[in-house]
């Protein structure tokens, strides 16, 4: 499985569509967008930070484990760091697979696991 993990302090740019072979049947793309309201407070944005070498290691482990359960061809993971204004993406994930079920499960469980034990944090702090 092709795995890419990126962190960026710039706006997330959607990677160019690029299918590794003619057996890809599903392209699934997820973007997590910063919302205005968090616990009833109106925000201008959120501040993100990561323990990047550990985050990469944990994410790579998650993706390798999930690929055993839900075989997919490729995952590209991009997390933005620093200040992310409301309405912009903090997270982008693209999954390619032969069939949709695998991509949907892989994506859903990747995000669930991200929120369990990948050392990335958001905080309500103005830039």
């Amino acid at each position, binding site marked *: 499985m092709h795995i890419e993990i990126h962190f960026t302090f710039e706006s997330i740019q959607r990677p160019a569509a690029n299918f590794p072979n003619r057996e890809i049947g599903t392209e699934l793309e997820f973007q*997590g967008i910063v919302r205005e309201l968090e616990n009833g407070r109106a925000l201008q944005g959120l501040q*993100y*930070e*990561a*323990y990047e*070498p*550990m*985050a990469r*290691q*944990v994410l790579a482990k998650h993706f390798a484990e999930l690929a055993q359960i839900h075989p997919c061809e490729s995952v590209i993971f991009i*997390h933005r760091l620093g200040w992310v204004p409301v309405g912009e993406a*903090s*997270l982008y994930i693209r999954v390619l697979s032969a069939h949709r079920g695998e991509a949907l499960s892989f994506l859903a469980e990747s*995000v669930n696991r*991200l*929120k*369990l*034990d*990948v*050392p*990335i*944090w*958001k*905080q309500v702090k103005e830039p």
Partner: protein
Amino acid sequence: MEITLLAFAQAKDDFGFSSQTVACSAEETLRELVRRIAPNANLEHLRIAVDCEFAEWDTPIGNAREVALIPPVSGG
């Protein structure tokens, strides 16, 4: 020996540093290390990682090079 102790997000605010070099011995546990640096800190919701892997608080430091204080994560 020396290790690098890192603190992130809320732990950085609570502990008052993001990175420091700490003298220690291989036999000292992670809990003892952190208690020595911050005797009054509340460790309840904090996890600890050694060289980029989650570890138990009562593990000895051993040959660790980098120890990180990991508050509840909130990426995505």
